[in-house]
């Protein structure tokens, strides 16, 4: 409690929804940052869920900023330029709610998180070819969005640090615990404070608006997601290729290598990764025709894009490509040698959809070790 000889009464400032929003945002942003900056592909589902939740919280908070009461309302805290200037030069009364600088932080965080959600959807649709925008975008857009997503994510990290710094500074300056106030919702009412305008929240309208927005976004997202996605890997595997190539290893999808690599590979079957894999000329020609007809150049997927640049000294070895090295570099070599994986070439051991050529981050599961 306060050390003052004449404590001021505490009054409600932050309603329950503002507080739930704030701490919900803290949790979801933290989880998104951890999984985004440090997690591998297997964490994508968690990353999407937390990022989507953060965006949903922001949208709901915006609605509450219109229909909420007291200090929750944008009208209460979004500053006019003159008011902002007065505050910065110290000629301002105390704000129980957001002060003008704090208000700018609120707006900046909202914009940044919505930008993250939008760029995230573009990455999902363009790079991973999933979700509502998969039918509209390609890997080029997805890749660019990824750069932007990372930049905005760093921006959010900076905003968070600034926010924390601002809270500490203001708490010290005004001799109150602002973080505690966001838990209890209470702050001291002091003489000279700017008085609240007493506007009552319109909870019913807020709920209806949020429900309508949710319904529109969810149904819109679902409808858009159901559209056919162009430039996808060929789905039906040629039976001859499956029989011949699949005899010794998983059937590597033709979209994983450019046509030239397939041609080089088929020209050297007598020394095929350390073994003789001879096929009679007619069958070999048929297989090569199918492989080149469905090669990396014919699709627009992340695996095709990243594997279309083979290592010069190993033009058809996926595990030697810079992209493969980068994506798997954190995994220990012993993992690839133990049962039931046995070798780097056994993609299907961990990637359930390896033979489709899609390599979805949602289809990754590293198996427990078995006896050989």
């Amino acid at each position, binding site marked *: 409690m306060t050390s003052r000889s004449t404590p001021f009464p505490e009054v409600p400032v932050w309603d329950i929804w503002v507080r739930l929003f704030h701490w919900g945002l803290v949790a979801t942003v933290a989880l998104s940052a951890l999984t985004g900056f440090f997690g591998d592909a297997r964490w994508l589902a968690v990353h999407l869920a937390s990022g989507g939740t953060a965006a949903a919280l922001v949208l709901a908070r915006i609605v509450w900023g219109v229909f909420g009461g007291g200090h929750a309302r944008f009208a209460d805290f979004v500053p006019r330029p003159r008011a902002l200037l007065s505050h910065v030069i110290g000629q301002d009364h105390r704000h129980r709610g957001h002060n003008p600088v704090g208000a700018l932080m609120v707006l900046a965080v909202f914009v940044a998180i919505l930008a993250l959600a939008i760029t995230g959807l573009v990455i999902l649709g363009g790079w991973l070819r999933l979700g509502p925008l998969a039918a509209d975008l390609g890997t080029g857009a997805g890749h660019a969005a990824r750069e932007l997503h990372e930049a905005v994510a760093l921006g959010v990290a900076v905003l968070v640090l600034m926010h924390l710094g601002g809270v500490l500074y203001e708490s010290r300056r005004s001799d109150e615990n602002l973080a505690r106030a966001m838990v209890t919702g209470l702050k001291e009412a002091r003489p000279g404070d700017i008085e609240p305008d007493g506007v009552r929240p319109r909870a019913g309208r807020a709920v209806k608006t949020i429900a309508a927005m949710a319904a529109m976004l969810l149904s819109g997202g679902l409808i858009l997601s159901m559209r056919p996605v162009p430039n996808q890997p060929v789905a039906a595997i040629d039976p001859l290729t499956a029989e011949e190539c699949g005899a*010794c290893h*998983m059937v590597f999808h033709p979209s994983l290598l450019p046509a030239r690599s397939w041609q080089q590979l088929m020209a050297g079957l007598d020394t095929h990764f*350390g*073994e*003789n894999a001879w096929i009679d000329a007619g069958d070999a020609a048929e297989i090569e025709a199918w492989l080149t007809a469905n090669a990396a150049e014919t699709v627009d997927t992340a695996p095709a894009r990243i594997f279309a640049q083979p290592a010069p000294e190993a033009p058809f070895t996926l595990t030697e490509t810079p992209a493969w090295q980068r994506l798997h570099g954190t995994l220990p070599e012993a993992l690839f040698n133990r049962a039931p994986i*046995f070798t780097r*070439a056994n993609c299907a051991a961990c990637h359930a959809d390896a033979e489709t050529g899609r390599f979805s981050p949602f289809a990754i599961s590293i198996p427990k070790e078995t006896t050989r």
Partner: protein
Amino acid sequence: MKRLTLCLAMLAAAPALAQDTSPARLIAGYEAEAGTPANPAAGKALFLATHGTGKPDTPACTTCHTDNPRAAGQTRTGKTIDPLAPSANPDRFTDVKKVEKWFGRNCDSVLGRACTAAEKADIIAWLSGL
């Protein structure tokens, strides 16, 4: 009745189409080509030996097929290979094209050369007797 007879005949013919040979016929063919009877003991020795004259990663038949042909083997990429012994896998040695293809590949990988007809006869004779 005629239709039923015809259908039965067609059904009876179907399996024959899927199997154009048998271990015994293959052995007879290779024996004739080699001019000598098959020797299962020699086939066993050849199959189980480490040769070192072929490609470095495949020094022996047992590299993939293991030393127990009645059990499943495993490719170097971890894929299961069905047993080689016909007693464990009746589909073995029933397709000339397939048999010749795999002898062609694996003899080169293991021995560094083509197998002779005599060697083929020996190996099939041994595997068929397990």
